């Protein structure tokens, strides 16, 4: 780093000075007296002269603080974890206060740009030191010092002070950027602390409640997607050693808090989450799909003769904040898709559809799952608009004989079992609380079952529904309503199929669900 000669010693001297001043009784309220004197010392030492020197000062300080913690961890004379922590926090908390005061007092009181720029700089430096430490020490890496710096800095910058409240959204943005850089896939040794930070009660409150117009919801959704992406390979391969189980269970806890406190957040971002959660991670996906707006009262799915299409909300489109249409690539495929939807041409579109969705011949990896999900939701929403422009509402009668249904029926017939499983999953992922998507895709699934030209299609529709029903609660309302219709309505002749009785467990499962329905 070509640090100028003597900078390391100067930094060490200043840091030591500051820690003593911070803990000194004469530090004054929030260390402001000590800070005034210390900034003078930094000036005398020339640290604040250039941006480069400030950057070096923060990097060296961060390295010294973390180094001190590693020494405390390895100091055998300290058996007590509490004492080790007290020793580390003695320095780390002082360092955090210094950063906080420098951020608060940099530039004029109302010049938020210099404050935020400095915060971005410091967070970036701490993240850089963490990543380098993570790579260098590998399994000896310890998350504690970095976790402490981030959480205490966040809490200090969340204090109810005018100067901080005026930059609160930018502060959140800076922390989300940093957490995104440090996402578990990039620093797995920091993953537990990362999830602790992301789910800290103050962070949740700031991100999901206190920031007006839900402006931080998109940032928070991105952080959850970072976690799902990290867990996905392990969950898909059902490789759940203890350390993964711990992280998976911790993520479930966080999702439960979101389901209970912020269901609208899960409703809005369900699509992006289900795009990265592996298809076999059923309970976590059910949890997300079970969210419904708090003002809504869901009719009991087991209500006899429930008239779903008479529910007031059933014609309203849910908010989907992911731009799924833009995920339909490449552009000429999207162009052909739109052309086919509008005019059923080119006629080759259907016969080429499967090859557009396939990405390899590797079993279990054959298809582009995000593309299938986007295609299904896009075609479905186009169909709903088309039906509604005719002044109708989605129903078993209005969804048929359309280019949209051509596409769905073609996929049901033409795909192999893996592709069809993913296709049916994409449809079932839309079975949520009463809204137009739930209703349209529920009718579509039942229509595909009724019109199936092979029993395999009906079997796989049953499989996709059943595997979501046999897991522990919660279960999405739309899933229950659809399955009950399938097994109750004689039109579908459900009970005649061999696969209903393929094994005692399966038969028992169907009977128990049927009994709860009757």
């Amino acid at each position, binding site marked *: 780093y070509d640090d100028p000669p003597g900078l390391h010693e100067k930094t060490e001297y200043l840091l030591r000075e500051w820690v003593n001043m911070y803990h000194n009784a004469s530090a004054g309220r929030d260390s402001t007296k000590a800070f005034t004197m210390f900034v003078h010392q930094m000036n005398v030492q020339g640290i604040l002269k250039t941006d480069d020197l400030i950057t070096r000062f923060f990097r060296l300080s961060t390295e010294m603080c973390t180094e001190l913690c590693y020494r405390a961890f390895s100091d055998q004379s300290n058996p007590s974890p509490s004492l080790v922590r007290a020793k580390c926090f003695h320095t780390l908390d002082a360092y955090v206060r210094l950063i906080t005061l420098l951020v608060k007092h940099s530039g004029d009181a109302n010049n938020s740009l210099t404050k935020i720029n400095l915060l971005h700089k410091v967070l970036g430096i701490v993240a850089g030191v963490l990543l380098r430490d993570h790579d260098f020490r590998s399994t000896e890496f310890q998350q504690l010092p970095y976790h402490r710096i981030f959480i205490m800095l966040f809490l200090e910058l969340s204090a109810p002070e005018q100067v901080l409240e005026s930059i609160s959204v930018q502060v959140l943005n800076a922390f989300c950027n940093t957490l995104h850089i440090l996402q578990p896939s990039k620093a797995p040794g920091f993953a537990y602390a990362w999830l602790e930070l992301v789910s800290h009660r103050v962070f949740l409150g700031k991100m999901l409640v206190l920031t007006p117009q839900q402006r931080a919801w998109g940032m928070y959704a991105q952080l959850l997607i970072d976690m799902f992406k990290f867990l996905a390979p392990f969950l898909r391969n059902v490789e*759940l050693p203890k350390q993964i189980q711990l992280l998976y269970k911790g993520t479930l806890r966080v999702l439960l808090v979101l389901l209970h406190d912020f269901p609208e957040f899960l409703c809005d971002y369900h699509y992006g989450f289900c795009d990265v959660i592996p298809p076999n991670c059923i309970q976590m996906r059910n949890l997300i799909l079970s969210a419904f707006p708090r003002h809504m009262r869901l009719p009991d799915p087991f209500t006899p003769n429930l008239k779903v299409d008479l529910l007031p909300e059933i014609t309203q489109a849910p908010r989907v904040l992911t731009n799924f249409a833009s995920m339909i690539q490449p552009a000429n495929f999207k162009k052909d898709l739109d052309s086919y939807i509008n005019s059923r041409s080119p006629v080759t579109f259907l016969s080429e559809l499967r090859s557009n969705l396939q990405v390899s011949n590797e079993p279990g990896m054959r298809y582009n799952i995000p593309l299938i999900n986007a295609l299904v939701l896009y075609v479905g929403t186009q169909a709903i608009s088309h039906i509604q422009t005719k002044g109708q509402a989605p129903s078993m009668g209005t969804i048929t004989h359309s280019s949209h249904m051509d596409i769905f029926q073609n996929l049901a017939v033409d795909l192999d079992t893996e592709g069809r499983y993913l296709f049916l999953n994409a449809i079932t992922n839309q079975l949520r609380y009463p809204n137009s998507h739930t209703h349209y895709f529920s009718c579509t699934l039942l229509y595909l079952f009724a019109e199936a030209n092979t029993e395999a299609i009906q079997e796989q529709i049953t499989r996709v529904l059943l595997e979501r029903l046999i897991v522990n609660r919660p279960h999405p309302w739309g899933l229950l309503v659809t399955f009950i219709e399938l097994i109750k309505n004689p039109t579908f002749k459900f009970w005649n199929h061999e696969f209903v009785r393929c094994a005692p467990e399966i038969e028992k499962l169907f009977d128990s669900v049927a009994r709860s329905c009757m």
Partner: protein
Amino acid sequence: MVMDQFGMVGLLTFIRAAESDNSLVSLALGSDLTTLGLNLNSPEKLYSNFGGPWAEQPCRPQDIDYHVPSEYLINQNIRDKLASIKLNRYGEDLLFFLFYMFSGDILQLSAAAELYSREWRFHKDERVWITRAPGMVPAEKTGTYERGTYYFFDAANWRKVAKEFHLEYDRLEERPHIPQAFPYN
């Protein structure tokens, strides 16, 4: 029928495998999410005292930092000047407060031990502290039980309540044992 992993047989195979492989269960059948230490029926928001992804309990009131004037905080330098915590100097009221507020903490055990030494006993079934009403001898007393008038500490209403009670000695907790733990300071 579909004979690969994408049909009913595939699901059945996974369910059967999960019966013998615990790591599969959490995916195949999911877990009972009501056992993760979150009160999912709470009318209150959970996030404001969420203990974190690894916590089996919500935060206790004293675990949550509130923005208080820095003068309220104990500074490192005066820590040693403050009297150390000696439970035998505190009244019953404070001992009960520490017992009920510091669940899962050494302090809960320490308060219990001090109450024990003041002739309070914790009833393991009633889950309440009781002591003999002063000056009241048991109406009946044997080697295994006694009957008489006792004071129950009613934590809900925070007061002592006199009650007639048939007291089985073996339902009373022995003297609480305080594990050798590393004090913070």
